[in-house]
């Protein structure tokens, strides 16, 4: 086997998987805390792609041209507005349904997803949008026409994804805020009795999930250079799959699931057949769920008596 090609496919899979992982966090956290699947999360990521373009345009208008400054300021801008969007969606579409049948918020989520998608199409147009390439350059190994490469942008994606996940893990495990989150996840009613404002915690979880989707949105948009109002759909499904694969409700599971899914897709399409890469990815999912019904790192739910 050609090692350069193998290495290249692993890089392809890692980069793709990191973006899946970042978005999967939003699914997994929301599921962990209120047991609902937020189908609008893919569209939240899509909105953050548009925010990236808007942020870049505004900054360029003010004459900022340093790529690193552009990226970090855009990141802050996108995170701010996307988490605001996440919190607003929770407040308007899910909180009023908190005590309703479990299916109601699910349908509401599908509704939000349709609203966001169509709103963006109508307000921004159906056209493909593009952003300029900010970070050029590539690291290559090998000869002139036979090499392995990773672009600086791809490195940035993997590094930022790992940092973001590490940071989030720290927040959830080591801070008072994280403790409140975990308490709400374990027993919402009890947490409330003990003085935790659970509504606020849930809103915050939506905000955090959206923030990570925004990180992914900025990085993916800069890497692939183009997006439209429809990008949230496929990416959302893939990220959701990643969350289930890693064990929905588990934070490290989301990242692990994302990277596994990315690697599986890229290695299968690289060495077997790209026609069937999704078939393979989902067969893998089914296989894992048969042996570990709650995903790789998920904890089986305990029946309470």
């Amino acid at each position, binding site marked *: 086997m050609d090692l350069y090609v193998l290495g290249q496919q692993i890089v392809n899979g890692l980069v793709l998987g990191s973006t899946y992982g970042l978005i999967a966090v939003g699914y997994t956290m929301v599921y962990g805390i209120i047991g609902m699947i937020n189908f609008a999360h893919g569209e939240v990521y899509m909105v953050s792609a548009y925010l990236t373009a808007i942020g870049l345009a505004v900054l360029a208008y003010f004459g900022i041209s340093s790529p690193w400054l552009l990226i970090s300021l855009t990141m802050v801008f996108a995170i701010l507005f996307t988490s605001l969007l996440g919190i607003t969606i929770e407040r308007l579409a899910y909180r009023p349904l908190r005590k309703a049948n479990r299916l109601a918020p699910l349908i509401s989520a599908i509704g939000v997803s349709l609203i966001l998608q169509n709103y963006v199409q109508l307000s921004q147009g159906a056209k493909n949008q593009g952003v300029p390439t900010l970070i050029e350059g590539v690291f290559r190994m090998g000869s002139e026409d036979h090499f392995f490469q990773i672009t600086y942008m791809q490195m940035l994606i993997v590094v930022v994804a790992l940092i973001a996940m590490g940071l989030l893990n720290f927040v959830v495990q080591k801070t008072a805020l994280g403790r409140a989150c975990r308490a709400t996840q374990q027993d919402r009613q009890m947490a409330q009795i003990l003085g935790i404002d659970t509504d606020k915690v849930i809103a915050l979880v939506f905000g955090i999930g959206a923030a990570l989707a925004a990180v992914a949105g900025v990085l993916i948009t800069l890497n692939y*250079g183009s997006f439209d109002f429809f990008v949230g*759909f496929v990416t959302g499904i893939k990220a959701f799959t990643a969350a289930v694969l890693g064990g929905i409700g588990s934070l490290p599971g989301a990242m692990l699931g994302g990277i596994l899914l990315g690697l599986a897709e890229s290695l299968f399409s690289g060495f077997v057949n790209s026609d069937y890469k999704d078939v393979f990815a989902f067969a893998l999912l089914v296989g894992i769920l048969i042996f570990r019904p709650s995903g790789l790192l998920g904890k089986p739910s305990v029946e309470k008596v």
Partner: protein
Amino acid sequence: MLTRLTLTLALTVMTSSLGLAAGKDILIGVAGPHTGASAPFGLQLWKGAEKAVDDINKAGGVNGHMLRTVKADDACLPAQAKNVANKLVNTDKVNAVVGHFCSSSTIPAAGIYRENNVLMITPASTNPRVTEDQAYKTKDCQAITDKNKKDQCELNNYSTIMRTCGRDDQQGVEAANFIVNRLHSKSVAIIHDKDTYGQGLADAMRTHLKTLGQPAPVMYEGLTRGEKDFNALVTKVKAAKADVVYFGGLYAEAGPLLRQMREQGLKAAFISGDGIVSNDFLSAAGGAKFVDGAYMTFGADLRNVPTGKAVVEAFRKSGYEPEGYTLYSYAAVQAIAAAMKGTGEIQDGRKLSKWLVDNGAETVMGLVRWTPKGDLVKSSYVMYVWDKAGKYAEATKL
């Protein structure tokens, strides 16, 4: 009290005038992806049809009727295409249809139009099956000896499905010739998007390469529509040492695919079909430097045809660039109007399509003639090449 009275009055006037107009108007359904990932193409069909209807109405309409467009959104989903076709036929009771866009939507919808004897002209669906599936089969009427009865039988079996664009088998020939004669390629990688149009194009390419005595493609694989990351596929193409990548599909996937090819340092030539004829290809690829040198086959660019000059200028004045299929859609409406004028009939799809096959129609494309199957008699595909300014021009002129 007064306000309520005025309101009622206003409402009555409004409804009665609407009712009157609705009774007289000729309805033309414009079916295509008005939402969803292919919406920019739906917009091209819509803009073209709307402008044509406007222009025809300004010139006095058809047989004393005004034309009116009805938007029908299939989102390029075959199941939804069947639904909107049924709705256009049964609820809106349209007189004729311009559309659909994606061949995978047009093929199932066409059956419904033909069954209900409604004329459908697609400005964009190039898959052979669009007309082939509905084409009249001579054997159905061969046994009949009485001439009048035979004519009647033939008319009853006539297809109401036509198009103002070419077919993928012709497109494939043009592209295959180009690859062999101009690029002198020996290793072609064929990639498609697993949709009827894209895979049809890819199949046509594979067949014609074989006819030309070329070695089998080094790769023949599909990607998933809606995705943006094709790096794994690109690495594979690179490892297969292809010097030409032929892509059957639309710009939304073609753009990122081409970009990732260049980012991975793959210098192979990139060729695709009419699914990337849109400035959106440019933004999907992330800029002109990536599309530079990309080839595509497309019908003669109607923007350069003298018959369409006035229409093109009117479009540009309104701030819309009539790219891609816009003018083909305009021509489809013109053909419908011409057939209605010619026959004095506004509903019978078989009569209208037979008239078009017998007489042809003057359109922005010039005089258009059809085969009895509803395909263009003459449709020449031209090879275009994108340059580093993000514009495309005929490759043969270079």
